[in-house]
């Protein structure tokens, strides 16, 4: 077996010269320290994206967009297609875990200050990937065309409409008309399976390329260690195998969740029915949704909702631009200002999300 493998590699090597790849695999090293575990978060996120890609392609074989066919085809997938239930549930669960690990990865990078020079663009591309991940979630949520997703999309796209001047046209472009209809479903489908994957893959490739080019970031405490105390492990095979081990565990958890907590399909969307109880966005939008709900009707001279949307927009932009913002460290502070900001942001997201579910 090993011989056949070597023969194939030799065959390729002879024609395409694998020396640069060999060099990269041989020389790429990953720092080993007490916070090394966070290095794996990006890998898990990437793995979940691959799961999404694979299960998404399989779902595409049976899914039929359209007001009269979307719900029916998803029902067909989960009831009639062999292992269709597993693929659909894994896709739904993996989407949620993907967002969760993407957030975890982002905050681990933030708190370890890995976004600093020379990795500014890695951070920026990473943030853009996160935004597109959320867009994936939002567009995919509507595709089963059930009651909950229909009304959640209605509420979600309504929020876009509050932006002055461009809000309404933007909402109409998103919806393909004034209301959420079959036209919205068609365009969300197109966005979900064609537009987003294309853009996402581009930014993901850039993100991965930057990481390969610059290697893993050494945290401050690690940099300050004397050379002899700095420990590294080879990326291949040590780190790659550890990554793989974690992927296996995550995959097993994914199947467990898909089997024991299947994603409900609910009732088919009826545009003429009154909105059912308990309409809420996916959990990762909850903190924004809850904040908008809690804001007063008017703040100063502008509408509360518009104020909220603008603040989130500006805050998101600042967050993306964080590598370029200089905040001086305070030598007498135990916890540095940026870390305090990070903690406040995390606390805000967690508290608002919890409030969204209990209020």
């Amino acid at each position, binding site marked *: 077996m090993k011989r056949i493998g070597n023969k194939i590699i030799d065959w390729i090597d002879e024609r395409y010269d694998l020396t640069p790849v060999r060099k990269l695999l041989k020389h790429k090293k990953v720092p080993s320290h007490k916070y090394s575990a966070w290095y794996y978060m990006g890998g898990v996120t990437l793995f979940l994206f691959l799961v999404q890609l694979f299960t998404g392609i399989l779902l595409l074989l049976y899914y039929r967009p359209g007001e009269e066919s979307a719900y029916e085809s998803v029902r067909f997938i989960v*009831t009639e297609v062999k292992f269709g239930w597993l693929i659909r549930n894994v896709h739904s669960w993996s989407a949620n875990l993907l967002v969760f690990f993407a957030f975890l990865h982002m905050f681990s990078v933030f708190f370890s200050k890995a976004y600093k020079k020379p990795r500014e663009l890695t951070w920026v591309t990473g943030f853009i990937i996160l935004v597109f991940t959320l867009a994936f979630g939002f567009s995919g949520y509507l595709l089963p065309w059930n009651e909950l997703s229909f009304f959640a999309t209605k509420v979600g796209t309504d929020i876009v409409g509050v932006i002055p001047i461009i809000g309404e046209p933007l909402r109409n472009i998103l919806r393909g008309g004034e209301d959420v209809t079959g036209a919205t479903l068609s365009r969300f489908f197109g966005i979900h399976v064609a537009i987003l994957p294309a853009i996402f893959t581009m930014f993901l490739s850039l993100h991965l390329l930057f990481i390969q080019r610059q290697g893993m970031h050494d945290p401050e405490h690690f940099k300050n260690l004397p050379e002899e105390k700095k420990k590294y492990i080879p990326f291949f095979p040590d780190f790659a195998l550890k990554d793989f*081990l974690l992927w296996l565990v995550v995959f*097993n958890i994914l*199947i467990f969740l898909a089997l024991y907590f299947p994603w409900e399909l609910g009732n088919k969307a009826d545009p003429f029915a009154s909105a059912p109880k308990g309409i809420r966005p996916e959990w990762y939008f909850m903190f924004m949704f809850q904040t908008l709900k809690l804001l007063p009707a008017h703040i100063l001279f502008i509408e509360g909702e518009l104020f909220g949307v603008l603040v989130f927009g500006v805050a998101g932009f600042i967050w993306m631009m964080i590598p370029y913002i200089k905040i001086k460290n305070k030598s007498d502070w135990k916890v540095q200002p940026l870390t305090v900001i990070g903690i406040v942001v995390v606390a805000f997201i967690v508290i608002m999300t919890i409030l969204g579910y209990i209020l």
Partner: protein
Amino acid sequence: MRKSFFYLPIYALALFLTIGFYDGAEQKNKTAQNSKEDHCVSCHKENDMMPKGFSENDVHRHAELSCSGCHGGDPSSDDESIAMSPSKGYRGVPKKKDIPQFCGKCHSNINIMRVYQPRIATDQVSQFYTSMHGKKLLQGDVNVADCTSCHTAHNILPAKDPRSTVYALNVPPTCNKCHGDKELMKKYNLPSNQLEEYSKSVHGNELLNKKDIGAPACNDCHGNHGAMPPGLTSVSYVCGMCHINNLQYFNATKMARAFEKQDFHGCEQCHGNHGVQKPSDNMVGVGKESICVDCHNEGDKGYATAKSIKISLDKLSDLYNLAETKLNEVHQKGMNEVEISFLLQDAKQDLIQSRTLVHTFDTVKVNSKTKDGVAIASNALAMAEKQINDYYTRRNGFLAATLAFLLLVVALYFKIKDIGKKNS
């Protein structure tokens, strides 16, 4: 001749306009009369002499009809001697026996009534005189019901208004005001426990407890204004108004003619009247609760038919119940129940139809329908069992997969450790 034909449409138009103007003039006059200051109400209120149970919500008040609309007189005058003068058409309070005619003055006149409701019936008074109430009233019996006994005199509301005494939910207590009076009913040799029995019946439970106004109240079987106890032959027709198939099947049987000969009361003979209960399969057959054995004895054909029908009904019913239990299990396990519930709906339909076909007393017809139901229910049961099996297969599959993953994870762990040792 030709000339007269030419003028015919003009005459017709003139006649039409005259009648139209006449009716319109009368209506206009009435409205004008009512819209003026109404001294009847102001004086009677002032002197605390308003009629018992008077309500501003009364349908006549809403239609801008004042007291004078029924009682006559001149409401524009604040002088009692003028306002309540017979010369002004004052009729006063009608005597009980005159009440139907008193109300019928308007309610039997379609020209007046169509103004308020184009499709309204105007035969209430004539129907009333065909009823036992009306007949007795004509004979001078003042204990029987007149219009006001059910509708009230001054708080009359449309029958669709839930506050009305004749709203579907309120009909049983309204009738019971008299029919529940033991002393009164004794005079007519009538029972007084109908409401009590009805409340316990399947109809009463639907109407009074579940507030389903589609369920029959007293008037749905006995009629409204022409209220009569249904006669022997009409009982089946009364029930058949809703239970159409049962009536058709029953009427086509020899049993129907045998019932007539024996003076049996159609449906009532087996199901009862006011206290009619939800029928159970045990009413058929030869068991303890069977009604068939009241007339049929072991050895006769009817006995064998009853036994055979019961067996096929039980077979379908048991299978349906079993499949339904399995369906619940499928639902609880979060498995696919859509197809199974569709099948069970069909099976239930067959079960209902089989139960209806019992009224043919024909084993072939009942058995053929139950056979269809059994086939569908068996299919549903098999599908439900497959879903339940799949549920466990998935879990076992997950266990096997987890074991495989675990093995791989352990192997990887040792491999990583081994590589780590080599590197160091």
